[in-house]
């Protein structure tokens, strides 16, 4: 038994497309304790969703896990059969998808869809399941639950639908909730409501959350730990304070520098990260960020940097930092 609720070790996952192998995840290690909130940030295609989906056994064809081990709550997920997986999926581990418009089934009522999860995983009767569904709707802040249970998804607004998604995800009181860009499709004021609700529920129910997003603002307010992903690698991992106040990797630094701040006083020019995201079919040799990196050295183009530990939970993969740390070690 490991001390972590989620322990992903050296995961490698590739998509075998007609155009060639896409190494979506390359040596990804992530761990998370019970009740913690982990944020995974990165650009589209960086592998943040794939990581979370593989933990639920939801890797889509032609994706295939080709290395590493995934532990969740004592189960070794990568060794489980589909049947075993179905028992924990939706029960001990659930997910909220990005788009509440498409992730609910339009031809079933809200009540039907919430009850489905309850009936599948518990031995409650239909009556009890309906009562529980009502409780859940109240829990996620939807009033008049009796009326709502009979409504169809199209009768609800985006924010309401996302609340229903959360209710379904929480139906069996999971230990881990994966939220895949839960607020990207919503307006800011609704986003604020949903994030507040999630934090509130976390306090009440004590579950752990993996929050996948590209919005640094969202992770700053919610997460204990942050993993920054780039081209299928976790290039920096640390506490929220480490990442925001003491970023080490050039990509993390660039990302934080490049977002316009609402509280900026003077009009300062933004400092963007130049170049374009990696073509995952033909990734560069060595560090994937090297072609866009200002501090790129010769070795960066040849070899992938090793993991450099920077204290308790903070680590990064960058030659520059590796060099600095080695010099520090030598000086001692």
């Amino acid at each position: 038994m490991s001390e972590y609720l989620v322990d992903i070790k050296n995961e490698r996952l590739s998509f075998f497309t007609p155009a060639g192998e896409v190494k979506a995840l390359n040596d990804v290690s992530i761990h998370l304790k019970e009740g913690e909130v982990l944020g995974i940030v990165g650009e589209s295609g960086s592998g943040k969703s794939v990581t979370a989906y593989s933990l639920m056994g939801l890797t889509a064809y032609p994706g295939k896990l080709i290395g590493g081990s995934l532990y969740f709550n004592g189960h070794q997920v990568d060794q489980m059969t589909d049947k075993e997986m179905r028992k924990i999926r939706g029960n001990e581990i659930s997910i909220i998808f990005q788009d509440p418009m498409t992730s609910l089934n339009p031809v079933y009522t809200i009540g039907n869809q919430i009850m489905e999860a309850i009936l599948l995983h518990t031995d409650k009767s239909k009556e009890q399941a309906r009562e529980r569904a009502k409780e859940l709707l109240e829990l996620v802040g939807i009033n008049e639950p009796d009326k709502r249970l009979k409504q169809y998804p199209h009768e609800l607004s985006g924010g309401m639908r996302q609340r229903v998604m959360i209710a379904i995800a929480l139906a069996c009181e999971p230990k881990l909730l994966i939220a895949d860009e839960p607020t990207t499709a919503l307006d800011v004021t609704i986003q604020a409501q949903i994030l507040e609700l999630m934090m509130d529920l976390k306090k009440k129910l004590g579950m752990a959350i993996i929050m996948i997003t590209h919005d640094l603002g969202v992770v700053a307010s919610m997460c204990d730990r942050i993993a920054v992903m780039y081209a299928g690698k976790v290039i920096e991992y640390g506490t929220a304070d480490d990442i925001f106040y003491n970023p080490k990797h050039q990509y993390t630094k660039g990302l934080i520098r490049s977002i316009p701040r609402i509280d900026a006083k003077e009009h300062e020019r933004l400092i963007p990260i130049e170049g374009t995201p990696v073509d995952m079919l033909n990734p560069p040799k060595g560090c994937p960020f090297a072609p866009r990196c200002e501090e790129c050295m010769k070795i960066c183009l040849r070899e992938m940097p090793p993991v450099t530990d920077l204290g308790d939970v903070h680590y990064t993969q960058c030659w520059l930092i590796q060099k600095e740390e080695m010099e520090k070690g030598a000086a001692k």
Partner: protein
Amino acid sequence: MSDKQNSFIQVEHLQQYFPAGGFGRNKKYIQAVDDVSFTISKGETLGLVGESGCGKTTTGRTLLRLYEPTGGRFVYDGNVIFDVDKKQFVDMLPYRKRMQIVFQDPYASLDPRMTVGDIVGEAIDVHKMAANKQERYEIIIEMLRRVGLNSEHANRYPHEFSGGQRQRVGIARALAVRPEFIVCDEPISALDVSIQAQMINMFEDLQEEMGLTYLFIAHDLSAVKHISNRIGVMYLGRMVELADSYELITRPLHPYTKSLISAIPIADPKIAKESKRIALQGDVPSPLNPPSGCRFRTRCPYADEKCAQETPKWREVERGHFSACHHIDKLD
């Protein structure tokens, strides 16, 4: 700004209703834009923010007559483009050369069967801006260079480009006719974070080089604040506040603006944890049947009797700072 006669762009009481079923007396309308007035000086950027469905995109498109306006008046550089009361509608063709638009979705707004060169060149043909093929080619290449692409891109098709590059093509197309005024309709919201900063900088550079005037529409208040001189905030088809960007962010007057600003997640864990959100209850009402009086009253914490009966007047509360709310004086 106070000198209305000299404004480059002058919009008065713009109204855009879309028919939405019903016959005769029961005919229903979506009140997408209602009584919106603003001015933009030459070389200035006016930001327009609000939640989805607030009418910001419709405002931009109606000005360019992509929709036929149902009310109001638009004076462009001293020329009346339309005046619905006087039934005056000008022929748009010569003005299409002076006003352009960049659309939100770079995937949907480029014809997949045209090469990038032809996409940019189409406008040059329509307005007969090139005397011969050679000249046409030169203009295309120059425009591509301005947006950070090069001559070899001209023969490629849109699907060969990334989202950020496609958006550059969309901008090159808008620039090809050397316009003075560009409506930027959420040009950065579909792009990755690290690319957004590149685009914002490019918009600023182009404005300086070519003396452009922007109407910059977005829902991301931080980005709008960065690029705009002044910002207008819309809610359910009406403008609720308009002021200098820094003034609007630091001293918002309207309760909606206040909650909108407080809802923005700040990418700084310490500030994010300390900041208090002014949570808005509920969702935006339907524009088919907006609330009487002040349209924000159903979600406003300060709403009273008067708000339901009277539509608040659009007035200049302080020099250059406009707002429409009955309670502004009480709220400080």
